[in-house]
């Protein structure tokens, strides 16, 4: 249970504050409601590049990182398809340094051409390091455009290809900032051993005068209902063949979201899960197997993946996976199994409440979803899922017409 207070400033900035008396550190999290899904299809990867540029300094804070480091702080950020999240932790005495720096870049970011040139190069190296130079690193660059044809989830946050990043211009940067980096499109969440009124006063002091801007009008193209099984086979210089079956699932608001989350735990949550026990341990076909949901705001993906042992016949492996999926559709999970995944969910929720930075991020995330109360209420929704729900949603989700399959094959070069 996390107690918190919520305030909305006149300019529309939402503030969530939670007092944690156990830590000498303050966490300041700033979430902007903008992600890769808001990008122009011809300029993908931009939200993420922009995140890099936000560290280039602002009118009064020449070095964002430097000012925070002098204050004993550390900061970083990440970009997802739905939102962009900046976070700072520092000794609580210096919380104003964080608010000063964070508000200054909301007001007057100072993004130069040189800045863009360097960060473009950094992001290209990031692309290489994380997506191209890792075994299986490009899986989602392949799966997303297979599963989505219209909706912007069809590209990854890093972008469709390097060319898009290479072409980013100062003009794009200014436009993006004006559209999305406004107080009324942001959520700031603060966890510290500081009184609520004091937190409010400080946030009001540093952010209160930032003018509200036009609200974001988001009209994303809806993904049309998928009506056919899609498959893609690629060969790569990797040791083992991987198989991915990505099924369309509901959006984050739909109560069935919780059912999907639990049903992937039945399949793959821990070593007692079905895929591990039945497939990895008992068939001699797989080196590993997994099932997970993407957790997106709009309609997401429920993916079942497996890593095949060398020389295993792909059809045989796929049949074994389909068999497990079929059981989800046709047989009720027993009460014990359901109780187990709920217990696990509850425990991992409680474990995640240690550490102030985690809590600040979670508050911001749930507020972005629509209501920070979810941080405390969500367990109830998980608890209320029934065995019938699991079967009903399984039946619905696990349909070949809404499935995209990626066969990521070893090219057999075996030079390992």
């Amino acid at each position, binding site marked *: 249970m996390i107690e918190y207070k919520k305030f909305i400033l006149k300019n529309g900035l939402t503030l969530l504050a939670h007092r944690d008396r156990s830590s000498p550190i303050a966490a300041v999290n700033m979430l902007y409601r903008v992600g890769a899904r808001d990008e122009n299809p011809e300029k993908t990867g931009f939200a993420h590049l922009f995140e890099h540029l936000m560290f280039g300094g602002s009118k009064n804070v020449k070095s964002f*990182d430097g000012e925070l*480091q002098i204050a*004993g702080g550390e900061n970083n950020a990440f970009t997802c398809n739905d939102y962009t999240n900046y976070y700072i932790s520092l000794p609580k005495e210096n919380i104003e*340094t964080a608010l000063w720096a964070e508000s200054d870049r909301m007001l007057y970011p100072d993004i130069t051409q040189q800045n863009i040139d360097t960060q473009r190069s950094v992001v290209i190296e990031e692309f290489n390091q994380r997506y191209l130079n890792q075994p299986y690193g490009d899986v989602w660059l392949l799966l997303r455009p297979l599963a989505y044809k219209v909706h912007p989830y069809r590209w990854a946050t890093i972008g469709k290809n390097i060319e898009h990043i290479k072409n980013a211009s100062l003009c794009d940067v200014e436009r993006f900032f004006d559209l999305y980096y406004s107080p009324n499109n942001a959520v700031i969440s603060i966890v510290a051993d500081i009184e609520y009124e004091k937190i409010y006063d400080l946030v009001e002091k540093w952010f209160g005068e930032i003018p509200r801007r036009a609200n974001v009008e988001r009209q994303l193209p809806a993904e049309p209902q998928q009506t056919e099984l899609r498959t893609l086979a690629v060969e790569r210089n990797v040791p083992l063949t991987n198989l991915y079956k990505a099924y369309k699932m509901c959006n984050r608001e739909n109560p069935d979201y919780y059912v999907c989350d639990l049903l992937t735990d039945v399949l793959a949550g821990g070593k007692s899960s079905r895929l591990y026990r039945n497939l990895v341990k008992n068939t001699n076909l797989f080196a590993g197997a997994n099932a997970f949901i993407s957790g997106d705001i709009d309609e997401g993906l429920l993916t079942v993946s497996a890593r095949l042992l060398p020389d295993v016949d792909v059809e045989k492996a796929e049949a074994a996976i389909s068999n497990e999926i079929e059981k989800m559709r046709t047989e009720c999970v027993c009460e014990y199994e359901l109780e187990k995944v709920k217990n696990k969910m509850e425990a991992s929720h409680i474990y995640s409440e240690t550490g102030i930075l985690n809590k600040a991020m979670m508050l911001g995330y749930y507020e972005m979803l629509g209501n920070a109360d979810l941080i405390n209420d969500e367990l109830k929704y998980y608890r209320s899922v029934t065995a019938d729900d699991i079967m009903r949603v399984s039946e619905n989700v696990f349909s070949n017409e809404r499935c995209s399959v990626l066969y990521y094959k070893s090219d057999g070069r075996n030079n390992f």
Partner: protein
Amino acid sequence: MNDIVKLNRSVAPEIKLPDGILLPAVNDIRLQNGLSLSVINTGTADILRFSIVFDAGTRYQPQFLVAASTLRMLAEGTEKYKSEEIAEQIDFYGASVDFDIDRDWSCVTFYSLVRHFEKIMEIAEQIIKYPVFPEKELNIYKQNQKQQMIIERTKVSTLAREAFVSALFGKNHCYGSFAQPDDYDRLNSSMLSEFHEKYYSSSNAFIVVSGKISEKEIQIISDTFGKKTWGNPQKAEPERQKIVTSPEKTVYISKPDSVQSAIRIGKVLFNKNHRDYCGMFFLNTVLGGYFGSRLMKNIREEKGYTYGIYSNIVCMRDSGYLTISAEVGNEYVKSTLEEIKNEILRLQQQKITKDELSLVKNYIIGDILRSMDGAWKIADIYIDVRQINSNLKHMEQIFDEALKISPDRILDLANRYLDTATLTTIIAGRG
């Protein structure tokens, strides 16, 4: 927009930093059988973490992979429970278990809800004292781990890391050797049983618990692990091996299809008990130990050659080393190596400015505070310092050194330890 804004933003808010750290209280208890139990009570939520650390790292193994496999197979069958039963119970009670191993130590960690702790300790006892290493489970483990290792070894970073330690310590040294995938084929159940019997005992371990802990939990631990001595009564005696650094100062490992190359540069230093450790920790932070470091600023933020470049001081029980690591575009390898060298020379030739000195001091102070945020992190730190026969006072030493270190001392350390002629360079990639 200037007219709208009334607040004077051009002056940075005042900064205050603590001149000391408030160390979390650790209650050290000697259990009846002599086993040491350290209790760190930080309880806000109803959860706790139990870690038991053994002198059972890879340095003690008679052949490759025995130590890690013994540890990772502990939960795959015991005298009382089958592998599936253990997995089932751990999942059902919302617990989780981690197995960690390095060259010197192995560690089993349970995360548990307070209300299920007794049950989890019953499983922990089985896993730690009575594992049976069933052949069937071992075969699955060997098969899957071998494949995992084959995949790991397709990464340039893995190849560089392996070649690096081997060049620094010698490929037969316990800190420089590394296994090959085929080594999995040579494992059998009795090797693991033997290793377990020799090293997993009450006289070769210590326990650290953190989170919400009352007398009841302490009693449960004491009843489970602290009454009679269990296992081999002899404490492990680490053998001191001679370090043989390769005379070859630059090693290329070819991986023709790679997009980037992994670079490792460094040398053998010392462990955390060395009188210059705290100073070198500071120097390393300046060079590449944080996001604002000289290497990061120069090679990422100015040149854009890499997504990230870091330096680290890695310490083991009997030694340690400096490592500078980055993955860079193939075309940037040469320039990156030059810039790394330039940054080291700069440390040796020019005194650090007051501004940079105080920035790094403040950053380190903040970082020490951050490193003790929450029960899990404090336990990690405490285990670390216990392994060098110290306690949380060690964190105070780093803190104090950071407060008092001078530009002259940094210059002196850079000249004493970072002579570029003594550094080993590894490049894995298309090169």
